[in-house]
Structures are given as structure tokens and as C-alpha cells.
């Protein structure tokens, strides 16, 4: 892992997620893709397990900074990013449909766990939170695999390489 590139990349994606992503939000719920979720799956799929664990918690921390409530996403992203990295050692997630499925599943699970942890922190939540989690995960799953290529280019890795 090129850690300087990783740090710059996470910072840039966090800033994009926090500021410009509303541009491509759709429907009355203003649903947009979760770039940090896509990034989480990218690191879990293309890097070795130790690097994926560190990346998952870092991306989760960045997601907390974007939302403004510290803790829930650090834990949920870290947990499911690590789980996906371990799963990737058994079943390599290389084809786009499987990558989409992985983004969708991690999005739903991390969203639900993050929601429950937010409740633990006595954070009131929107009434349509489940619909929001579902559609955000679906939107991210739809565009995620296509963003893996520029991610791989920036991180200087070969996407056809198996690295467990």
C-alpha cells in the first residue's frame, strides 16, 4: 500500500462526499452515492487483509466526519470492511456484478449497524432512514465498480492481480 497516496485519496474523496455530491443526488429524498462506501469495498477487495483493516477504519472515520456524529461509521465500516477482506481471501470478488453485490450488501449492513449505534448515542434519526440506506446502497452499487478503475490507477495497482 502506498500510504501517502492513500491519505491524499481518502481526504479528496471525503471532501467530494461532503461538498459536491449533492449535484448527482436524485429523487425527493436527495439520494446520492456513498463514495466512502465504494472506497471501503475497493480497499477490502484489492489490498491485503492487514491493509484492508486499517483502510476500513480510516474510511469509517472519514464517513463519521462527513455525517458529523463520531463513532457509528468507524465501527460499522471497520467491522464490515474487515469481514469483506477476510471473505475476499476465500471468494475473490473480481467481477463487476459481484463487486456491485458486495457494495450493496456492505452498504445495507454497515448502514443498519451504524443506525443502531447512532441510537445508542441517543441520536434521533430520520423517519425514512431505512429507505435512505437501501437506495444509497443501491445507487453506490450501480456506479461503484466503474469507479474502481480510476481508484486502482491512483493507487498504482493492477486490478487483475490477486492479492490476499
Amino acid at each position: 500500500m502506498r500510504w501517502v497516496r492513500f491519505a491524499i485519496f481518502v481526504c479528496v474523496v471525503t471532501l467530494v462526499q461532503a461538498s459536491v455530491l449533492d449535484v448527482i443526488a436524485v429523487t425527493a429524498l436527495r439520494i446520492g452515492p456513498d463514495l466512502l462506501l465504494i472506497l471501503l469495498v475497493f480497499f477490502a477487495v484489492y489490498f491485503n487483509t492487514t491493509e484492508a483493516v486499517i483502510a476500513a477504519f480510516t474510511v469509517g472515520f472519514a464517513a463519521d466526519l462527513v455525517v458529523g456524529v463520531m463513532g457509528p461509521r468507524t465501527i460499522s465500516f471497520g467491522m464490515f470492511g474487515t469481514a469483506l477482506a477476510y471473505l475476499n481471501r476465500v471468494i475473490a470478488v473480481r467481477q463487476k456484478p459481484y463487486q456491485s453485490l458486495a457494495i450493496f450488501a456492505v452498504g445495507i449492513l454497515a448502514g443498519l449497524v451504524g443506525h443502531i449505534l447512532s441510537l445508542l448515542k441517543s441520536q434521533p434519526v430520520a423517519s425514512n432512514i431505512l429507505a435512505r440506506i437501501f437506495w444509497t446502497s443501491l445507487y453506490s452499487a450501480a456506479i461503484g465498480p466503474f469507479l474502481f478503475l480510476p481508484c486502482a490507477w491512483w493507487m498504482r495497482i493492477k486490478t487483475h492481480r490477486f492479492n490476499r
Partner: protein
Amino acid sequence: MAGKQIKVSRRMLFTWCMLGGFILLLSPGSLTSKLPLAFARVFGFPLRVGRSISLSVNSQQPGPGGADGMEVQYQNYIANLEAELEQERRKVEKLSGLRSRRPLEGANLVFADVIKASVSGFQSELIINRGRRDGLARGQFVLGDNSIIGTVATVDTSTASVRLITDPASRIEVTIADTSRIMQGAGGNSAKVEMLSTEHKIKLGQRVYAKKKPGLLDVAMIAGKVSQCKVDGAQPLLWDVTVEPACNMETLSSVAVIIMNSQKGSKR
């Protein structure tokens, strides 16, 4: 010793990271809420650039009711004048002609730029470039396009977060149909007025005013308009009233914080 590499097992790494996450989760909100503010302060410039790009793209979208930005401002201004007039009329009736000073006359309006806006996400909040050193404090009301858009939630030295009226954690007292009720944010771009009996006549588009609060707001000011009103399915004697903000909060680039009883007296 210098070249010694510390080896940590994956399990230990995961455990330490989880522990860090739980420390963040269980730490008091007053401590952890400073982290997003610090992030907004450090990356203020790129966040502002990103927001201006977002605003320029969204500028084509019409405001509530299809009105553009200036028209919304004028409509809200007129609504506030009407509320002010009504309040003054009542005072005149009560005090037999004795006049007091104008509402918001002693208030200091601190204008602030929006650094970061999370209007459509899980939380509805703005981060602004004014803080404690500008006189901001928790609970102060915030104006956008002449309407109440929220209250100051957390304050740092030079930044603050504004909890919008649509945030699920927001609960403000409002006046609707000549009665006072609590309005709670419902996420997205709406809020709900609670415990409103079906005896009250509610119309679509009816104005909802943030109630005056001594020390924080001298006069009722428009906060939103009724966008949906139906009988509550669970409690048939109550209305289920949905309120949409009086301005398009996604396109706000600057806001004003109302500081009542300011020592400065001058407007920034």
C-alpha cells in the same frame, strides 16, 4: 533500534481499531462534536469551493412553490412583517397604545458563510464560518432568506454547526393556527408539527412561525409552510402536519445568526 519494525497481528490491529471506534462512540458529544468542526475549519477552502460548484449546478432548481431565491426572500419578509404587525397590534390592545422598541432592534445579526451543508443526508446541519469569538452560543436562532432555518447546535472558536429545523434532533416551538406546538424535524426536507388537534383548521400553504423566545428571538418569524395535512392514522383526533421550510436550504450560501441583547449593538 531505528530500523526495528513493529509487528502487530491482524486480530490485535482489529481489536485496537474497534476500541478506538467505541471510545469515539461513547465519548461525550461535547468532545467528539469538535472533530467535524475541526475538519470543516482545516478544509474550509476546498469545502467552500465544492459547495459553490454544487450551488451553481443547483441554482436552476426553483425554491419552495416554484419561486426563485429573491421571491422567496420577499415572501418571507412579508410574512415576518405580518407576524410582527400582528404582535404589535396585540401589544397595542394590551398596553393601550404604549409602544415598545421594534423587534430585533437590539439584536446583532452575525452574517456567516456556509462551509459545509448536510441537508439531504442522515442529518440536516450546516457548518458556518463564525464561532464563539463572534459571539455565537448554543441555542441562538439562525436566519436564511429571512426565515428561521435552525438553531446553533455546537460552537467552536471560529466555526459553528447549525441544526436545521428539518433535522430529527431539532425541536422548536412554533405557532400554527393561533396555537403553539412543538415542531420536530423529520429528516430530508420536512418537519412535523406534533399534537395538533383536528379542531384546528389547517390549510395547505399555511405559514408556520417560530415562536418568540425571550433572550433568543424577540418576535415570531416564519419557519415554514404546511405542505401536507392529513388525519393521523394512529390517533384520529390529531392532524399529521408536514411542514416544508420557507426557503430552499440546500442553496443557502450565507446565513445570519440572531444574537439578542448583544453588547456590541453594531451589525456585522
